[in-house]
């Protein structure tokens, strides 16, 4: 009898993350490409995962309700499904115009 097949590693996929304004300053970079667990379902799930990565993310997302997100350059909400978004942005409420 063979040993049980190893539990397959949870799938990941590369995602480009971009940050703006004070979210960028708190994260400490303008963009990065991370291998993100494929089973993260929503924007809020991704935020939780990022916060577990370090204090810089915790600072950026200290008040999650304030930070806005965009999936492939389209505004999204915390419960928006990540789908196959390749570029995910986080930023404060907009102050243009």
């Amino acid at each position, binding site marked *: 009898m063979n040993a049980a097949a190893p539990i397959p590693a949870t799938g990941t996929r590369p995602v480009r993350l971009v940050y*703006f*304004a004070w979210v960028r300053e708190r994260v400490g970079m303008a963009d990065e490409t991370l291998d993100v667990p494929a089973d993260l379902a929503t924007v809020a799930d991704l935020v939780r995962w990022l916060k577990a990565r370090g204090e810089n993310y915790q600072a950026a997302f200290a008040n999650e309700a304030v930070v806005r997100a*965009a999936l492939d350059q389209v505004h999204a909400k915390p419960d928006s499904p990540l789908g196959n978004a390749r570029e995910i*942005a986080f*930023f404060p*409420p*907009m*102050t243009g*115009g």
Partner: protein
Amino acid sequence: MTPLIRIQREDFSLQDEIDALAAGRADIGAVVSFIGLCRDEAGTLAALELEHYPGMAEAEIGRVAAEAAARWPLIGLVAIHRYGLIRPGEQIVLVLAASVHRRAAFEAADFMMDYLKTRAPFWKREHRADGTLGGWVEAKADDDDAAERWNR
């Protein structure tokens, strides 16, 4: 009618945009324009620094413009938004709406500005006249309320 959208560091000319829009045609009855300018905040501001999300800025303003074009019978629609360092008295944003009648032009320009404020990915930070770097400008609940009017 294809909206003209530009995101640029350089200044713009309202007159040039109106001239381009109206050139060779005589079916426009009304042109409404909005220019947003950098205020000096009673002398305390040296400049505004405008950060933006390249790509999404064009795309998002394009979506807002498409909504305006679907809601009002427009002959022309222009939106230009600058980024970078902008000094007091300088222009930041231009919206131009042309139509046969004034109501469509007024409402479309007003709508565009309300949505630009709340949806276009731009962020302002202050550079103070005393040489210090001010904070990021906070979004106003007023602006969300203004945009919300159009859903009534």
